[in-house]
């Protein structure tokens, strides 16, 4: 038998998934996740997840963008090739402001997207869960919870009973 990834259980609807998630969290499991076709309000807290760290990436991106913008104009219009236009100064923080502003937003947006990927450990085109037909229905309209075997508390029989107890149905063993 191939190595086991974990157990997958189906839940009836949004409230069922929400309350089951609270119970899995309270039971002390660490390596598990919920799966739903939509973002559910308050579910991260019910899963015991804190605030997302994506903003850190956004901040780094935005900070770099602003200074790259100003330094670029300083380098090009004052340092490397000073060009006198209409008697205006070669550099001032005012006229390149639109450039710095746009680059702040541009790099912050890239930072956000990259942050979303990094924090979600994507791209990850293969995952054991994709082997389950039941799991593939999640993205349309199903609600699932998967508890991984790598969780210190995991025990195939006990975890299966626990998932049944909190309302899970169609419990499946997922293989690596």
């Amino acid at each position, binding site marked *: 038998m191939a190595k086991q990834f974990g157990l997958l259980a189906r*839940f*009836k*609807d*949004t*409230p*069922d998934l*929400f309350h089951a*998630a609270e119970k899995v969290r309270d039971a002390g499991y660490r390596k598990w*996740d*919920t*799966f*739903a*076709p*939509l*973002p*559910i*309000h*308050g*579910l*991260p*807290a019910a*899963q015991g*997840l804190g*605030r*997302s760290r*994506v*903003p850190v990436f*956004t901040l780094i991106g935005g900070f770099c963008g602003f200074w790259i913008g100003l330094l*670029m*104009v300083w380098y*090009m*219009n004052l340092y*490397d*090739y000073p*060009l006198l*236009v209409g008697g*205006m100064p070669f550099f001032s923080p005012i006229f390149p402001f*639109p*450039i710095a502003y*746009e*680059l702040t*937003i*541009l790099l912050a*947006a*890239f930072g*956000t*997207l990259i*942050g*979303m990927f990094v924090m*979600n450990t*994507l*791209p*990850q*085109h293969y*995952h054991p*869960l994709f082997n389950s037909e039941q799991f593939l*229905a999640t*993205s*349309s*309209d199903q609600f699932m919870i998967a508890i991984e075997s790598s969780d210190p508390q995991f025990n195939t029989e006990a975890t299966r009973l626990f998932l049944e107890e909190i309302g899970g149905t169609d419990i499946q063993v997922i293989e690596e």
Partner: protein
Amino acid sequence: MATTTSNLPTCPAQAELLDQIRPAEHKETPLVGNKRDFPWVTEKICTIVESRVPTWWWVAFAMALFTASFTGVGLVWLVSTGVGVWGLANPVNWGWAIVNFVFWIGIGHAGTLISAILCLLKQGWRTSINRAAEAMTIFAVVCAGIFPLFHVGRVWFAWWLFPIPNSNAIWPQFRSPLEWDVFAVSTYGTVSALFWYMGMIPDLGTLRDRATLVLRRGMDETLTPLQRKVQTAIWTLRKYGYGIFAMGWRNAGNHWRNYEMAYLLLAGLSTPLVLSVHTIVSFDFAVSIIPGWHTTIFPPYFVAGAIFSGFGMVLTLMLPLRALYGFHDLITQRHIDNMCKICLGTGCIVGYAYIMEFFIAWYGANPFEEFAFINRAFGQYAWAYWIMFSCNVFVPQLFWFKAVRRNAAMVWIMSILINVGMWFERFVITVTSLANDFLPTSWGYYSPTIVDIFTFFGTFGLFSVLFLLFLKVLPIMPMGEVKFVMPQADPHGHGFGDTAQGANSEMKGGAH
């Protein structure tokens, strides 16, 4: 974040009072009509992509391609001859090219308003029109970009606009608003595409999973072996095509958590971006010293106009889509009402700006400025001014009436008139100030040539080609977001009246 807090009452009287509290009755019209459930939404959106294209699509696509070829002819003509084939000549050296550029960029702004500003304002109704409006933004930016790109004359040197080292060792000149425009518009196009793509990842995952399921279950037995092979090839292409771009999205709680945060941040970034883009576009005019252009009202006035024209375009696109694809439960009358009201609101801002410009021209006591405005309304381009004024100020006033907002045909015609009016607004601003400036001896009259007309006419075809391809290939509504505003999404089983999950067991997520 909804957390389970324990606000225990401190005294018996308080407990009694708390006991009497009942949840408020929602009188709100639901955002998804007919009490639809989650699978219905998935089927509705996915089958558009997965089934054969309807006949009307091919007819529209052929017409759009034919129209787009006009832009091709216009541009080949221009590049092979020179910018002189456009109607530009002293004193009007900025004609249709800038008018069309501002017109298309403005249309794009409604898409960003819907995806970003309405997201920050928690307007649930934006979800069903969001994706298509964002697509409209990107395609409008593509159309807009053509005009300044080819107006530079030798288009093969257009890359000099970007700070890339070249053999002349000259850098761009950053004191010019035109250079700011390069940064604003290219950032706008890029960030809009990023936002659009990120929002689409969960839906691409859904399409990937559906294709995988079809392949696993095998093709229909009734098909001939060849048909089965073709079908398998198509579904495999879908599985991998969508799969690659879905990046392995699994709809995990952790995924959604980071996704929601990233979405909120991108909305927060796009909001100042969209305001800055049209502000900088207006700087192209406002930073100069031409009478009629050199005004501080331009940035807010341009932004309001952009949103006004953009919502006009959203209505122009969504009303036929709603009828053709039967989206009446997703784009409800409430959505149409809201869009009409935004058109009315922004139309009033634009009207206020027209009148305020006149007042300031008089109050500023600058004879050139005064002349510029009197000339706009009563001079050689008065016809254009009054088309603009009637389409942008008088026409949207009809949106005050419910009967008008409920008449789809009427709304559609009005949405087109709004865009006609907004095109003329840019024409009036650009051309009247240049044609009659300080020196009467150098006055002139500008008319476009056939090349101008071909190039502009064709961009509607280009836009339609891109939009039709979007309809066929990509999920046209964000399924996760639409589901999020449905009553079944509530984790505590609350909903609207009798559709609440606790009240009516048939509506519960799993049972259909």
